[in-house]
């Protein structure tokens, strides 16, 4: 069964042009899809629309066939914000991670079990009482993901998950996300991360889907990527023998 469907969705601010227009997209259970596009392409607006923060002017967003309405609480969809500080507001890590579970009205033992599981999955066990302000950038990012995992969602929306992470934190994040079975939409400029995690990629530009297909085909299409302000990821760049020989000669 299709988990998420967007049908001819148009989103915009009153009196202004559309931020997203004619967007049609379907996502199956457990699917992982990367979203690439230049700044201002509408990636964050797309996520906010799916999560019910923004209302479409036209079209419909459906989750398991049920329409998502603006302001409605949809526990099956978890959004991890681009800026970790936009999401973390409790004084300590454990309070923030347990926030969603408490709002679900779960019994205390289940809250504790879910929190422990999420912290363990995100490698944050032992930091429970650490003030949020004392977490590193990578820990904050993982805390946001742990806060989302506690809700046990079917769909995770990750907005620039690797932004401002160092290499080790980024690698750790990729391992974490790769081990999850949730359906995911990941918006990122980190195309190598998308190659690692997402079998499918869509290119969003000026609020429209310009390409949708297997990650290697879409991200490896130099003309397409260039037309939408992107670059082919280094790992997909064709090997240049002349350049290699030049480097060898310089080395000798």
């Amino acid at each position, binding site marked *: 069964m299709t988990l998420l469907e967007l049908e001819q969705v148009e989103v915009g601010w009153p009196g202004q042009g559309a931020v997203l227009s004619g967007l049609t997209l379907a996502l199956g259970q457990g699917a992982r899809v990367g979203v690439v596009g230049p700044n201002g392409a509408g990636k964050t607006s797309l996520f906010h629309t799916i999560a019910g923060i923004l209302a479409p002017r036209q079209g419909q967003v459906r989750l398991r066939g049920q329409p998502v309405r603006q*302001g409605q*609480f949809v526990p099956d969809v978890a959004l991890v*914000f681009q800026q970790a500080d936009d999401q973390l507001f409790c004084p300590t890590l454990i309070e923030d991670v347990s926030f969603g579970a408490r709002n*679900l009205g779960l*019994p205390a033992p289940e809250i504790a079990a879910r929190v422990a599981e999420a912290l363990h999955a995100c490698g944050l066990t032992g930091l*429970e009482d650490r003030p949020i302000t004392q977490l590193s950038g990578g820990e904050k990012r993982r805390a946001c993901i742990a806060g989302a995992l506690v809700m046990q969602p079917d769909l995770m929306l990750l907005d620039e998950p690797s932004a401002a992470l160092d290499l080790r934190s980024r690698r750790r994040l990729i391992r974490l996300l790769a081990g999850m079975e949730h359906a995911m939409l990941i918006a990122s400029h980190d195309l190598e991360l998308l190659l690692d995690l997402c079998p499918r990629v869509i290119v969003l530009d000026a609020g429209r889907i310009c390409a949708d297909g297997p990650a290697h085909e879409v991200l490896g299409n130099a003309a397409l990527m260039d037309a939408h302000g992107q670059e082919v990821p280094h790992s997909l760049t064709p090997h240049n023998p002349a350049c290699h020989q030049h480097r060898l000669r310089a080395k000798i």
Partner: protein
Amino acid sequence: MPERARRAPALSARARLAVVFGLAFAFASVQSLAALPALWLIAGVSVLASGRPWQILVRLRGAAVLAAGFALVLPLIAGEVVLAHLGPIALYQEGALAGALIAGRLLAIVAMTLAILSPVAPFDLVAGMRGLGVPTLMADLALLTLRYMDEVAAQLARARLARRLRGGTTGWRALPDHALLLATSLIRAQARSEQLWAAMRLRGYGAGLAAPAATLSARDWAFVTGAGGLALAVIWMGRSL
């Protein structure tokens, strides 16, 4: 969560809020200077019992400055009976009495409030407010204001640093620039608060699914009853002295 549970405050947020409201009301009703030592005694015991007197005294600085302002300014501007002349300046008896009373009550209320509420996490405090029947909108506003103030302070500190690193002037001449920084920080903090609000709603805040607040324990009731008796005693003393 056993570590967390062990360190959780023994009294519920609801009981603490009820006690703070009751005592603050009683303190505010005092109209006699002779009753002030009793208020300070109660506040002092609360501060000592909180187990973190030094931290509370540090956080009391802002209120102390405000109290000093009342105590210093009111004798200069309010009243008719002149106590003394300091050159061209007259000190009025009514202003001095009112200033001392307002400053004394203010310090006692703020110290007692900090001592009783400081062990409670903001989220629990807001849940406690809701449990006492405070409208959800007001409770939510209180929570966002707490986060918003932190955000403004952090933004302001960063903006000041950035300004100083690029050779910005300091002192009184920089006051208009600081006002501009504050305005910018407020606008940015509002944008972040909107994001926070969205993040909270997405994690079910206000969706009505959360478990209702637990009933008050015997210890809570004993605390509230004892503090209620104390508040009544303060009101009686304030009127009889």
